[in-house]
């Protein structure tokens, strides 16, 4: 691991995708900073192509100028049908040039090779760097979008865009764009080189090419469609296999091995069939284009040979031409594949740009906070909130909480408890009214400051697949001693469970490590926030899966750790909420009852009924046991 830097330099991708609607412009702008490497790659492409064409021309010149057949023997050879071996001679006056020609050829090969390498290296350098940057940006962007955005979007969808679509963009830079350039340049250079030999020959050399282009694009459209279908079959087969393996108990319990084999056979055969269909397309495509390119090649060669035997072209010209026409035609067969790939790349770009264009949540990291320390006085004044226009989830919320008080919220699902406390971290912005923290409107605090001082423990405890220690410490910036970690773990009543794992605090959580129970997860998440030691603590049903006794222990530990902290508790258990300084009972987004346990328990209403129900548990147990 390298030493963590203060921050990762971040290229503003958003600016690249928003300045223009044109996708090409966006894609080019994303390259910014590396564009010269890319230009270098393209230039290398040109130079490599020139090196190649130069090699062909040199051989031609070598044949023409250094080697001369003796005319008197040539006719005889033709008559005799013998080959011309031993009838050609080198011009004695130019014999000394031979080493030079050899070195020249070597030089041109070196030019071609080096520039081919540079082209590959620079294109890869650009593509990989740009994509590295994109990946980081998208990752960062996603974690800086609002709760609201993540509520709307599905994980799978976001994941696909940030992985396979990013990869499609990478291929666009690294492969497709360069390949397209290579085809264009090979074509132009060789075409121009042939033009220098003979203009009409050059035109004849490309006469059938449009047909090749059309066939190629047509086939690759079909092939890519078929390929998608094939991939679906493959996925179905995988699903069948996966279900069989994970359901092995059911298969064995019902003795359904044969049935499963038949099912697998069905999918296996379908995939086989689909694979064959895909194959047939390929089997048709390659010979067909072989024929078309062959036809073009022969047309060119026949004309060139006639021109050569008529003396319009030299023999050396013909030899050069024979080399160049191949370089002109063959890359064209890739055109169809390229066109299809590029159009897919553009679609991916769109999907990616859609995420990037979303507005980030401004955390105000550099904005000074109006206070340096939070005392913890909270006042709600006529607060209203709605996720969607005109469907308020909180109406007219009014209450006051003094520093160090504990406020409990009780109410059914959807009554607005979670929304109410979430407003405190400004994860959502309240619509009307005011929330005052220490007398200052919450909106005047930068979010970054608020989130540092407001700690939320959510009901669905989310742990990362890291060690337990890392899970506890990931909320704090400074290095933490083991004693501190153990202290919070003890307060959250999870220390003993952690120590029962063979690796203790170094135990990995999740798929590759231990599976924690719901209650254990909740307590690790609680320890995490306790270590952060926020001025304002919010426990959103954070101990619902923890038993009553442990919960009481946690409550005492919390008080011992910091009794000046303002705490909000959401819970269903009366034993959890009864010790609060103030209890708010919510129903359908309104506060319907407010007071202490003693006040509310004597008041007809939701609180009293809840209390009565829970108080009955012990009675019922006694009765149950008496019945035996």
């Amino acid at each position, binding site marked *: 691991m390298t030493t963590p830097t203060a921050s990762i330099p971040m290229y503003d991708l958003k600016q690249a995708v928003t300045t223009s609607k044109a996708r090409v412009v966006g894609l080019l702008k994303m390259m910014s900073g590396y564009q010269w490497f890319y230009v270098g790659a393209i230039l290398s492409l040109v130079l490599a192509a020139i090196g190649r064409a130069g090699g062909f021309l040199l051989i031609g010149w070598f044949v023409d100028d250094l080697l001369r057949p003796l005319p008197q023997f*040539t006719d005889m050879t033709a008559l005799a049908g013998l*080959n*011309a071996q*031993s009838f050609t*001679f*080198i011009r004695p006056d130019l014999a000394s040039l*031979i080493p030079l020609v*050899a070195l020249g*050829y070597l030089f041109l*090969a*070196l030019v*071609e*090779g080096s520039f*081919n*390498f540079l082209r590959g290296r620079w294109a*890869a350098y650009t*593509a990989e760097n740009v994509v*590295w940057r994109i990946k980081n940006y998208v*990752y960062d962007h996603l*974690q800086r979008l609002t709760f609201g955005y993540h509520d709307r979007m599905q*994980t799978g969808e976001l994941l696909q865009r940030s*992985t396979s679509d990013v990869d499609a963009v990478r291929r666009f830079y690294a492969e497709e764009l360069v390949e397209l350039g290579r085809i264009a340049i090979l074509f132009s250079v060789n075409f121009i080189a042939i033009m220098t030999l003979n203009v009409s020959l050059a035109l004849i050399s490309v006469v059938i090419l449009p047909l090749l282009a059309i066939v190629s694009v047509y086939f690759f459209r079909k092939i890519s469609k078929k390929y998608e279908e094939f991939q679906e079959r493959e996925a179905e087969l995988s699903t069948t296999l996966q*279900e069989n*393996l994970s*359901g*092995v*108990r*059911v298969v*064995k*319990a*019902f*003795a*359904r*091995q044969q049935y499963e*084999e038949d099912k697998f*056979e069905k999918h296996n055969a379908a*995939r086989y069939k689909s*694979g064959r269909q895909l194959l047939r397309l390929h*089997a048709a495509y390659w*010979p067909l284009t072989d024929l078309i390119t062959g036809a073009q*090649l022969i047309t060119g060669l026949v004309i060139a040979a*006639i021109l050569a035997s008529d003396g319009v072209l030299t*023999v050396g010209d013909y*030899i050069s031409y*024979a080399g160049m026409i191949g370089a002109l035609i063959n890359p064209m067969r890739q055109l169809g594949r390229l066109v299809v790939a590029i159009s897919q790349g553009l679609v991916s770009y769109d999907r990616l740009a859609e995420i990037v264009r979303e507005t980030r949540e401004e955390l105000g990291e550099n904005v000074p906070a109006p206070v340096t320390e939070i005392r913890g006085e909270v006042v709600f004044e006529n607060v209203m909130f709605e996720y969607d226009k005109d469907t308020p989830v909180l109406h007219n919320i009014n209450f006051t909480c003094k520093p160090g008080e504990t406020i409990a919220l009780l109410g*059914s699902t959807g009554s607005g408890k979670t929304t109410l406390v979430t407003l405190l971290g400004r*994860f959502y912005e309240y619509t009307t009214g005011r929330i005052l923290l220490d007398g200052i409107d919450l909106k005047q605090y930068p979010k970054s400051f608020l989130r540092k001082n407001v700690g939320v423990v959510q009901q669905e405890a989310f742990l*990362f697949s890291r060690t337990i220690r890392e899970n506890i410490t990931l909320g704090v910036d400074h290095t933490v001693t083991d004693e501190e970690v153990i202290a919070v773990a003890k307060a959250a009543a999870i220390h003993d469970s952690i120590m029962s794992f063979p690796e203790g605090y170094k135990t990995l959580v999740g798929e*590759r490590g231990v599976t924690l129970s719901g209650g254990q997860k909740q307590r690790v998440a609680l320890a995490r926030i306790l270590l952060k030691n926020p001025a304002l603590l919010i426990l959103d049903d954070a101990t619902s899966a923890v038993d*009553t006794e442990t919960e009481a222990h946690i409550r005492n530990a919390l008080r011992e750790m910091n009794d000046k902290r303002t705490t909000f508790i959401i819970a*269903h258990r009366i034993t959890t909420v009864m010790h609060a300084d103030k209890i708010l009972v919510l129903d359908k987004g309104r506060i319907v009852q407010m007071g202490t346990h003693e006040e509310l328990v004597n008041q007809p*209403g*939701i609180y009293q*009924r809840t209390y009565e*129900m829970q108080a*009955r*548990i012990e009675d*019922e*147990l006694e009765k149950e046991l008496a019945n*035996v």
Partner: protein
Amino acid sequence: MSDEGQFEEQEFTSKINRGTVIRILAQVKPYWRWVLGFMVSISIVSIIEASFNLLSMQIIDEGIIGGDRDLLVSLFIQYGLRMGLLACLVYVFIILCGQLGERVQYDMRKKMFHHMQTLSFSYFDRTPVGWLMSRVTSDSSRISDLVTWGMLDVTWAIVNITTAMFFMLTINWQLTLVVMAVLPILLRIAMWFQVRILVQFRDSRKMNSKITGALNENITGVRVVKAVRREEKNLQEFNELTGGMYRSAFKAAWLSALFLPAVQMISAIAVVSVIWIGGLQVPNAMSIGSIQAFVAYIVFMMWPVQDMARVYAQMQQAVASAERVFALLDTPADIVDRPNATDPGTLRGEIKFENVEFYYEADKPVLKNFNLTVRAGETIALVGPTGHGKSTIVNLLCRFYEPRGGQVLINGQDYLDMPLHAIHSRIGMVLQTPHLFSGSIRENIRYGRLNATDEEIETASKLAGAHDFIITLDKGYEEQVGEGGVLLSVGQKQLLSLARAILADPEIFIMDEATSSVDTLTEALIQQGMDTMMNGRTSFVIAHRLSTIRKADRILVIENGGIAEMGSHAELIRQKGHYYDLYTNQFKQELEAKYTKAIETGEYDAVVIPADEAEAEEQPSGD
């Protein structure tokens, strides 16, 4: 799948095992005609390609320089004909080779799948599903690629080099020797490159899956990330991953970019020596056309060399794949029918565990000297802490595992003397986390008895209490489950698997109750379905709910691999032992869960208050 431990994939093998290669080749043995077909066609293709150079030489020397127009025309006609033939042969080898590839994959997958069906639980316990999946999907395709396209490429390469050598020898033997000297060096370099490129690609693939994992975690955990303000640090850590990926991907890319030029350079050196030596020799040894042909042959040989190097790298990978595949295929099933196993015709009757010993790992016994006799039709509830042997007992009963010591007797006959099928087909099982297959609800229930009619399926669903919720779904019994279908709750899934078990009409019924909370209505339905099942059938229930436990004929408290307490509910409560603690605890929890549910949903009235208390209580009026 785990990156660590015994399932770390060794993607390359440094030594290519002869036996493995022979066994790989055996995969295509039934299709030797296809292999022969594509090898012959690719060889002809290669020879035709080589002959083009010779033809070009003739065109130059005899047609153009010789000035024979008729000959020129006939030479070009030949050229065209050969191209036509070439195209036909290309078609033939693509079809043969491609079909063979599909076929080999099809065969191997079938073989592996079949073998996996015979393997025992113990194998699946220690082998992750992901590991098995990769064997069937990616390894089979690597192996088939090697025996088809790999073999094709090598055949082409060998024929190509041989014919080129032959033609070159006919032109000039001294120069041919020069080329021969260069060739092995070329091949060595090419192999060096290809292996390194593949390794880098593998590394970047691994990195990529880590990146996907990190992204997935960050998206699903975004609420925590924001709440603890971890954005900056997360990004730094993510940058480590993307940076690593950058390095290996970039290295793979530039190595690939270097590969071709390096090979080209070496061949260019060969060409230059030809020009140099050939140029000096021309007066007495070589024609212009033959020099051109010679150069063309050398350039041509670059491709076969490249192909051979690539196939070599692929082969290293494919052999490693094959070793894993064969290891899977060679794993014997632990539990198989004994010779002379006889089907007793029924499992109804007394079940007896006699001094049964069992362990998964030799030094950690799970069951010790376990004895139990169950009368026909009795319902046994197994309770006790997780990991103390409850599941092991039912797994042994099903003979998913066999006792390491002692015996399990069914109607007095050791069940090891019965065929597996006789046992499995007569036992019905409902698992804690019910497994459904993708497909319709009807198909999932029919899994219990494949020839059941739609009426029978509905009857079973009604008995299981699943019918009512099924018909509320848009497509009823035709509704798809799983991805792309409805998301069923754990309770609903249990109802479906109950229906499935009822349809199978087993002689012994085994149920592992769900621990996760199920809504009150569904729970009542499940209870009703279980009652139907247990009625008159020997039943074992790993019980979590009190209602189930209370109804059992006998309750077994399983602790430390043995029976800690045994008896009826009333007997055990009076004992005031483990069961008493377990029961009172569970009782409180269940009530609390029930009340919490009521409070959460705001349906206070759904909680039924016992009659005697309801009178004494003053019910506050609703709000």
